[in-house]
């Protein structure tokens, strides 16, 4: 746990028109840790997550991943916007898992996982297929490789989506409410995969409502509301002994 932080946010602001979603976020995510973002809907936690891989551009502050600014290049005092191709290059090292899976419906599970390594990194199909098979096996779907997403359950789709993100061998994984769209019965399988990934040492930022998972697997936890960080610390402390009234009120409803 030494060296520079994997993600560093300093006074990050973001607005959609008149709606001021992020009002100055400061936080640090260390390399190798599981960092949980919790809070009520509309608190800006998903928006912040999407800023990290520049799906949304920030309006103020500084946001860097692995020591490099996200979406900008700094020369002296001046910031230069990155070109589309440079933004794409930055995103290669950051995997993202969406609430609605967003698998490519016209491709089989295997093809979904092979797509980015072949198209982005220019790997040969044989190499990409070998890794895709290994990853699908790791998430417990070796018997579902040739199924299309519509033929898979939500939990299976989400595990394919995790394998797809891992295929790019990212150094940071972003999870945007990965279990919120799943039947309660299927949540466990996805959390198992994430737990396994955490144990392998992956740096993970997880927006979640699964407090049990946050308490058990998380290394740090941030409670957000109204676009600011209300409280942060070790999950055990924040969840077990919240200091702020807003945190107490929220946790009393979800725990």
């Amino acid at each position, binding site marked *: 746990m030494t060296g520079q932080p994997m993600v560093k946010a300093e006074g990050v602001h973001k607005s959609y028109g008149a709606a001021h979603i992020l009002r100055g976020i400061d936080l640090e995510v260390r390399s190798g840790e599981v960092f949980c973002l919790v809070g009520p809907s509309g608190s800006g936690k998903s928006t912040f997550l999407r800023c990290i891989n520049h*799906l949304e551009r920030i309006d103020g502050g500084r946001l860097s991943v692995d020591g490099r600014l996200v979406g900008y290049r700094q020369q002296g005092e001046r910031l230069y916007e990155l070109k589309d191709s440079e933004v*794409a290059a930055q*995103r290669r090292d950051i995997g993202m898992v969406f609430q609605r899976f*967003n698998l*490519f*419906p016209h491709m089989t599970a295997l093809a979904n996982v092979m797509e*980015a390594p072949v198209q*982005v990194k220019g790997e040969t199909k044989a190499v990409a297929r070998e890794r895709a098979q290994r990853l699908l096996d790791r998430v417990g779907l070796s018997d579902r490789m040739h199924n299309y997403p*519509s033929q898979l359950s939500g939990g299976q789709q989400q595990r394919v989506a995790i394998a797809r*993100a891992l295929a790019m061998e990212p150094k940071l994984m972003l999870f945007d409410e990965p279990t919120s769209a799943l039947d309660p019965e299927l949540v466990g399988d996805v959390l198992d995969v994430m737990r396994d990934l955490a144990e392998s040492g992956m740096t993970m930022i997880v927006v979640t409502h699964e407090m049990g998972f946050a308490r058990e697997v998380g290394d740090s936890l941030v409670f957000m509301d109204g676009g600011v960080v209300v409280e942060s610390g070790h999950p055990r402390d924040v969840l077990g002994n919240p200091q702020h009234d807003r945190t107490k009120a929220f946790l009393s409803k979800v725990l």
Partner: protein
Amino acid sequence: MTDKISKDPAGGPAGSGPSATPPGGPAKLPAAVPYQAIKAVPVRHYGRWISGVVVVALLGWLVYAFSQGNIIWDTVWDKLFDASIIDGLANTVLISIASMALGLVLGIVFAVMRLSKNPVTGAVAWLYIWFFRGTPVYVQLLVWFNLALIFEYINLGPIYKNETVDVMQPFMVALLGLGLNEGAYMAEIVRAGIQSVDEGQTEAAHALGMSQTKTMRRIVLPQAMRVIVPPTGNEFINMLKTSSLVSAVQYTEVLRASSNIGSTAGAVMEMLFVASIWYLALTSVFSVGQYYLERRFARGSSRSLPPTPWQRVRTNLATFKRSPEATA
């Protein structure tokens, strides 16, 4: 504990009660209760029978009127496979496919341009669609036909130079006229298709580090095809018939070939029937092709594809055969 279904795979003495699970078996769910299939008198649709009879009677009257009219039907059958008609037919198919291919390529290019963030390409695409959709295709054909009045030479510097009249042969005029016009319509169809693809798909592709171009080609367009193909099939069938207009620019397609014979042999109506028969044949064949193309691009969008008509017939026959056993 008595009414709960045991989670133990060994399945101990699970509940008693009327819908008891099979004793000692591995099944943990209650067995389905056998039921009596409903036998009821179906609703009688008298209206359908009456309207059916009326339609058949009207059709019969129409066929009779045509057969008694001043038309020599033997001429129709004689000329149907005339060499010049077959040549014209081949030309109709050729110009339709070529123009449609040009239209499709232009449509994709201009749809992407129209949706791009670049204001210049957006404006160019808008202008193209505005002009080629806003003027009649007949007028456009005549403008291409008479292009030499404006540009005497086609001069691409050191690469190519020729007199416009030599380049603008009937096929070229027809291709440019129909293809550029079709491109404007296809651009709007493709744009609707692209916009129908969920934004999450683009986000997922971008999050994987795919470029704008790769995302469009690999992720968005293949999914847009499902929305694009049905209206494109419609456009193509329209194209088969619209291609009859190019007879005005000296291109000998099936209608021109027919009326050539018709005016010399004094059989105008007969030859129009010949042309109509061929148009119907062409549109029928390509409608079937369209059906299978739509199935191809529906891949992955639903759990199972709808059956083809042939599969449906076979299933119906199978149920027909099986039904006596099922009711027994």
